[in-house]
């Protein structure tokens, strides 16, 4: 039994807010921004997410996310009660990243972890403000139609304005 007295009493209007830059688009890097955004929104905070560079791919209508062993020196996967390390170099072998992605997705399902699609839907549903970086759209030749409905297009100044008003500001 936990002492719940700290949470008793007055109604607290949570007016705090959070702004974050989402710059990475792999499966593993997609989790932190969406988990934090949905949780902050559930706790009554106003949340702004700015999707730039590879992070912009997280706004595509159809997500096809994967992980790479390359640049992830600490990656290890649970396997038969042990942990299999996935050395950087393995990423150069064809098929390894696909295998690692498959393993990760299998684990995610098995452990009752939300999919990125699920978290993204939850973020939209809870009125998280999403901004797609216009410059990245031009750079990688995305059309507005490639992205889900909802996000607005904007640039650095749009994010700075949101960040200026925020209690938490993150770069992920």
């Amino acid at each position: 039994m936990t002492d719940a007295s700290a949470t008793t009493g007055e109604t607290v209007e949570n007016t705090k807010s959070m702004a974050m830059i989402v710059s990475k688009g792999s499966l593993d890097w997609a989790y932190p921004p969406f988990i934090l955004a949905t949780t902050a929104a559930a706790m009554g905070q106003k949340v702004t997410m700015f999707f730039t560079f590879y992070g912009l791919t997280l706004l595509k209508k159809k997500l096809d996310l994967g992980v790479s062993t390359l640049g992830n020196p600490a990656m290890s996967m649970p396997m038969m009660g042990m942990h299999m390390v996935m050395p950087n170099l393995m990423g150069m072998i064809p098929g390894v990243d696909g295998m690692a992605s498959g393993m990760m997705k299998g684990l995610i399902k098995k452990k009752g972890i939300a999919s990125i699609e699920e978290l993204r839907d939850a973020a939209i549903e809870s009125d998280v403000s999403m901004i797609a970086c216009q410059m990245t759209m031009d750079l990688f030749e995305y059309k507005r139609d490639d992205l889900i409905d909802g996000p607005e297009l904007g640039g650095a100044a749009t994010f700075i304005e949101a960040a200026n008003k925020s209690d938490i500001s993150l770069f992920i």
Partner: protein
Amino acid sequence: MADQVLDAKGLNCPLPILKAKKALNNVPTGGTLEVLATDPGAVKDFEAFCRQTGNELLESSQDGKVFIFLIKHTA
């Protein structure tokens, strides 16, 4: 007996919190929501959630592998 019960067993962070928030929207102010979860991280998370949202955590207990939270919708 709680006004509503949310079974969040088998779900991992942040799903128990997200589903609880959604369920609380359907509980009238002053009513209670019972959440069942198996995620050990939910214990600290529901304390923080309630402190931040102003809802009242009436009870936090454990029955075997299941954690039980009783939340009063006050906010």
